[in-house]
């Protein structure tokens, strides 16, 4: 790993975006032009933002996770007015009676890598170099913060029309309230959640996550001579297979939120490995890529991140954009060690996603 990042300037944005896209594990919904422009506009107005190691700050200082929920694709359509993040943070501060001294990412991957940067630049607060997922998981309470005892609630949601919604109560009841509220806001909303102290975030978060986004971006963009070779290794992962997509199955579903399932519908992708053993690689996808099988045997699964890059120029590929005939490389990025505990696997392992498989043991990590 490279040296931790301390400042984020406008020139870092394309690199951060590339890294965030890769770490999104095949999801994320596109290019997030809106997010990167929003970040650029705020940095140009308020100056660069500070990224801090939590041990350099007062552990008693108040902190919260700042993020979006819902579809990043819809954010591209129903644009932010620019006031949503401040409004969400101020609403949380009013409810808890504590003014934030730092901001933490919920997950430093996908659009949520950039959102807390916008909030930090907007409010002039430091951004902690950690996160609660190390990748993207579909639910707000699937974090190492929650695993360590920090509650996601109270949480505030703000929509583009000026809606402010505050949800408080037991974490287990959160998703049932949150998704309908989200649809009411038009499909995406800005959030402040996990109110706590910097010390609590330091104790439960995955360290170095913000720096990791930048590093991944530099590898992808081959900055500083990175990734001339050992591409997967430089990302801290390994390559599972290179091949061509031979089938994409979108499973129909009439399930909705009311039965407590995950959002969106599942799909499967079959990749015919080119070279090697010519295996058939099957990816099971439900928002994110959950499982990779080779000729029927599990070769990777959640909580490890499984992601796709173009087989041609190694740019991240989104599951929503997979098409027959596309050449892709499948990479696996090992999960943070917090997820490897029994409690962690219960939240984020295959069983949590209803997959009756187990994480294979003995694979190189």
């Amino acid at each position, binding site marked *: 790993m490279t040296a931790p990042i301390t400042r984020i300037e406008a020139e870092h944005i394309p690199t951060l975006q590339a890294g965030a896209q890769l770490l999104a594990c095949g999801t994320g919904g596109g290019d997030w*032009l809106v997010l990167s422009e929003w970040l650029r506009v705020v940095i140009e107005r308020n100056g660069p933002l500070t990224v801090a190691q939590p041990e350099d700050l007062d552990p008693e200082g108040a902190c919260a996770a700042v993020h979006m929920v819902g579809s990043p694709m819809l954010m591209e359509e129903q644009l932010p007015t620019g006031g949503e993040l401040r409004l969400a943070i101020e609403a949380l501060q009013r409810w808890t009676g504590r003014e934030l001294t730092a901001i933490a990412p919920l997950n430093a991957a996908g659009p949520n890598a950039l959102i807390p940067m916008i909030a930090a630049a907007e409010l002039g607060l430091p951004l902690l170099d950690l996160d609660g997922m190390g990748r993207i998981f579909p639910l707000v309470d699937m974090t190492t913060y929650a695993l360590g005892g920090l509650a996601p609630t109270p949480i505030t949601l703000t929509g583009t029309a000026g809606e402010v919604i505050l949800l408080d109560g037991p974490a287990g009841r959160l998703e049932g309230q949150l998704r309908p509220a989200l649809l009411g806001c038009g499909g995406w909303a800005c959030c402040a959640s996990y109110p706590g102290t910097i010390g609590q975030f330091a104790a439960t978060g995955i360290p170095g996550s913000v720096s990791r986004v930048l590093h991944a971006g530099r590898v992808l963009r081959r900055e500083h001579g990175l990734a001339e070779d050992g591409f997967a290794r430089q990302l801290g992962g390994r390559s599972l297979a290179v091949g061509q997509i031979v089938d994409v199955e979108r499973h129909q579903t009439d399930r909705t939120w009311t039965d407590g399932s995950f959002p969106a519908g599942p799909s499967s992708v079959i990749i015919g490995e080119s070279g090697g053993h010519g295996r058939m690689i099957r990816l099971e996808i439900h928002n994110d890529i959950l499982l990779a099988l080779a000729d029927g045997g599990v070769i990777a699964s959640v909580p490890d991140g499984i992601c796709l890059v173009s087989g041609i120029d190694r740019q991240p590929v989104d599951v929503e954009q997979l*098409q027959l005939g596309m050449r892709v490389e499948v990479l696996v990025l090992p999960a943070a060690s917090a997820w490897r505990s029994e409690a962690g696997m219960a939240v984020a392992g295959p069983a949590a996603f209803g997959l009756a498989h187990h994480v294979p043991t003995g694979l190189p990590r």
Partner: protein
Amino acid sequence: MRLGIAVGSACLDLALMHGDTVLASSKCPTTGLLTSDLRTSLDSLPHLREYPVDSITVSAGWLTDAVRAGLGLAPIAALRLTQSGGHALGPFTGWPAALRAAVDCGSAVLTGGHDLAMRQLAPLDNDAIARFATTAAARGARGIAITASSSPAAPEHELVAAGIISSQVPGLPITLSHEIAGLGLLERENTALLNAALRPLAERSIDELRDVLNDYGLTAPLMFARHDATLCNAERLRRFPVTALESGAAVALRGAAVLAGTNRAMVMEIGARSSRIGFVENGRPLLTRHSEGMQVPGLRVALQLPRTLSTPIGGARTIDCRTGELLDAHNPPVSIGGGPSETVFDAAVFLGLATAPNRVQMSALAARKAVRTATEQLRRLAAGVAGDRTPIVVVGPAADLGPAITGLDVTLPDHASCAPAIGAAMAEPAAEVERVVVTGNRTDLDRSLTLATEQAMAGVISAGADPAGVEVTESSATHISYLPGSVFRLRVRATGRIEQSGGRR
């Protein structure tokens, strides 16, 4: 017979095709004056009148050049319809300053638009729209682009606003964003704005082209290559000229695949001033999902453009003939070989790596250094992409340099220098429809998909396809991540063919 005409920034290429066979091709340097360049090129194919030409496809590189240089574009106004409460990112966000200055004739963000569930975000303010139209026209706007939130799912507000504007300022060309692209407001708006700015130029140049072609007895239907190497007819291009952006890169890739007889290749197009690498898959250009292929920094558009990497190394890159150093890429361009300044091409000729009538004298050391530097840069460009036994095809005006200068095992097909014209001649009509639907059941989803399919098929026929040969080549309903399972993005793509007869007249 099909005639392909590729107008690039340096050359104008012609190719006459019968099936996959090239009957004739020509290449002429351009002067920047479209009609006289075309006449010069047509004169270079003296037997043209003997062939029954069924269709003519033009790759209108001058439209791309106009956007790159910010020249020849019309002043236009932007109207965005969305929720009230301010906006962090207004129209023209992220545009290069020079391009914006060339077209921006005022913008307004007014209330309107819908959310994903088709609920109105805010009512339209008819008076404000009428005032905006009047002000824009008074400032000299020659077009308006209207973009409403969620218009690909709910176009009503764009249509109503267009009605108000045309009754206020009759005859002012209006571009509606939902006719241009799918979800992604900023990119759709940018594309609609560019379209509005290109319309007067497209109108004018299509008329000029038609006149010249008629003078040569070429009265076959006039088609234009699009950004993905498919085509549309002239009437459609008049309304949607933005779809021709980067068509030059697309047809060069398509042409390379046809010439090399391959379905999959890495294509290196070695030009006079620059070279670029693109990819062919299934015989078609590999496209970026969005705007990474756009060669205007900062400007993001909602078109699937060819994924290319480029370097300012070309055959006409000037060199210092004493030291062999490559000189500034911004030096005034010279023709490939034949001076007045020494070029990479001259160095290659001197070393016997390429042939030309004139062999310029220079030091062997300098020539070797120039070729080596160029080779290293092109190799670095190629090494950035995973080779994986992909065959490499070289095309472009300086393609002859390919084998020597790349130092790689490459295919140099016949007619390689005219690949863009060949790709243009081989283009087929296509149309895409992208929609978002919120539906509770399978029947509704099927109905929406059927409707989108009909729209795509109508689109490809109106682009010039023979109605008998229309095929749906892609049809998908994808769940949108992180939303309940009832939200789908529909994408349908239809392709067709244009009628052809054969034989010499």
